[in-house]
C-alpha cells in the first residue's frame, strides 16, 4: 500500500539519491548492490530523520549511513594486507599521462582490484572530497594509517589505470 512519506523525506531523496547511488557504486562496484544500498540508506534515514538537525549536513550523513551499511555487510579480515601494493618509491622517469579520457568503467575496474581497506579511503578522498583528517575521523583510524593506505592505494590505482589506458590507446 502506498502511504505518504515522512515530511522532508521526498526532498531528501530528490536532492541526494544520485550522489548516494554513485557513492555506493564506487564502494561496491555493483549496480545491483548499489541500488540496494541506496534504498537501505534512505530507509534508515527515514527511521532516523530526527537525528538530522542540520540540513546542510544531509549528504555527509547519508554517505555515512551508506558506508556503514556497506561495511556491515562485509566483515573485513583483521589483518590488512596489500601484498602487491608497495610503499611509494622514487618514480621512474615519467612517461607522461597516457592519451585519452579516463572513463567511469575503467576507474571502477581499477577500484574493484583494491581491497576494501584501501578502496574506502580512496572513495572518501575523491568522491566525498574529505581531507585526510576527516577520513581518519570518519573511519576511526590514526591519521598515519590513513595517509599510508591512501598513498599506497593511489599508487596501485595509478598503475592499474595507466595499464588500462595504454591498452585502450596503444602507441
Amino acid at each position, binding site marked *: 500500500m502506498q502511504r505518504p512519506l515522512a515530511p522532508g523525506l521526498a526532498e531528501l531523496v530528490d536532492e541526494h539519491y544520485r550522489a548516494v547511488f554513485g557513492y555506493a557504486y564506487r564502494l561496491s562496484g555493483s549496480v545491483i548492490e548499489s541500488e540496494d544500498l541506496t534504498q537501505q540508506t534512505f530507509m534508515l534515514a527515514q527511521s532516523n530523520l530526527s537525528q538530522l538537525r542540520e540540513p546542510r549536513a544531509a549528504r555527509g550523513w547519508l554517505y555515512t549511513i551508506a558506508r*556503514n551499511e556497506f561495511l556491515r555487510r562485509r566483515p573485513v579480515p583483521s589483518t590488512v594486507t596489500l601484498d602487491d601494493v608497495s610503499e611509494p618509491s622514487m618514480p621512474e622517469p615519467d612517461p607522461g599521462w597516457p592519451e585519452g579520457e579516463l572513463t567511469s568503467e575503467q576507474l571502477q575496474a581499477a577500484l574493484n582490484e583494491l581491497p576494501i581497506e584501501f578502496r574506502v579511503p580512496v572513495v572518501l578522498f575523491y568522491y566525498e572530497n574529505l581531507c585526510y583528517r576527516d577520513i581518519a575521523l570518519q573511519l576511526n583510524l590514526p591519521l598515519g594509517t590513513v*595517509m599510508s593506505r591512501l598513498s599506497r592505494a593511489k599508487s596501485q590505482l595509478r598503475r592499474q589505470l595507466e595499464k588500462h589506458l595504454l591498452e585502450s590507446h596503444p602507441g
Partner: protein
Amino acid sequence: MDCHTARQMIEMLPRAAHDLPSAEEQALRDHLAHCPPCLSAAEEVGEWDMSLQSAMTSVPVPDDLHERLLSQLARSTPQAGRNASQFPDRTRHIRRIASWLAFCLVLFAGSVFWLSRAPRLELASVENGAIQQLRNRPDTGLAAFDQSFAAAVADSKWQKVCQSSPFGVNVDKRAGHDLAAFRVNIPSLRFRGWLVMVPISRIVDVPPSTYPDAVHYAQTAAWHDDRFVYVCLAEQGSVEALIAQWNSSAA
C-alpha cells in the same frame, strides 16, 4: 628536504597539503621552488588528481531508480496514511460490527505486542543510533540507562573493562531506552569506546558470530550470546587491535 622525501609528500598533493604540519609544507614548497623535476612531478600529480576526481563522481544512475526508491519508501513508511472509503448505506451496520471486531482484535494484538515486546530493530539502525548518539559525546550529556531490560554482560573480559553504570540509547523513538551502553576505557591498550547491548529478541538480523571476530573496518564489531546482541564501538584505538590483543594474550 631531499627529492625522495619531496616525492613522497607530493603523492599526497594537492588537497592534502593542508594536512601536513606547516613546517613540512613550507619545506616542500621551498624544495619545489628550487627543483624543476619535483615541481613538474607535483603538477602532474595535481592533474591526475583532478582527472581521477572527475571520473570518480560521474556515475550513470539508472533511469527509474528515483521512482522505485520513492515507491519502496512509501511502502515502508512507519505511519499509515488513512484513506476514507465509501460504503453503501445498507452495509453500514455490517461495517460497524466488522469494525468492532477488528477493534477488539487490534486491541488484543496490540496489548500482546506493545506490552510484551517493542518493535524489532535492524542491526544497522542499532549501530547507526549508537554511533550518532554516543561517539565522541561527553558522558555528561547522556541519560542513565532506564533498566528496561536487565543489562548484564556475560563475558568476564568485557565485564572487567566496562564501567559499572550503563547509559541508555533510544533508537526506535518510542518511550524508553532500547540499548544499554557501557563506557569502555582501557588505557593500557589505548582503547576507548563503548560496549552496547540489546536483547537478542529485539534484533531482526542477529550477527552470525558469537565472538567479536567479525570487525567492520576497525570501528565496530557485532556479535551475540544466547541473550544479547553486542556492538563494540571504538572512539580511540581500534576494535580489531583490541581483540587481536586479547586473542594473543589468551593463546
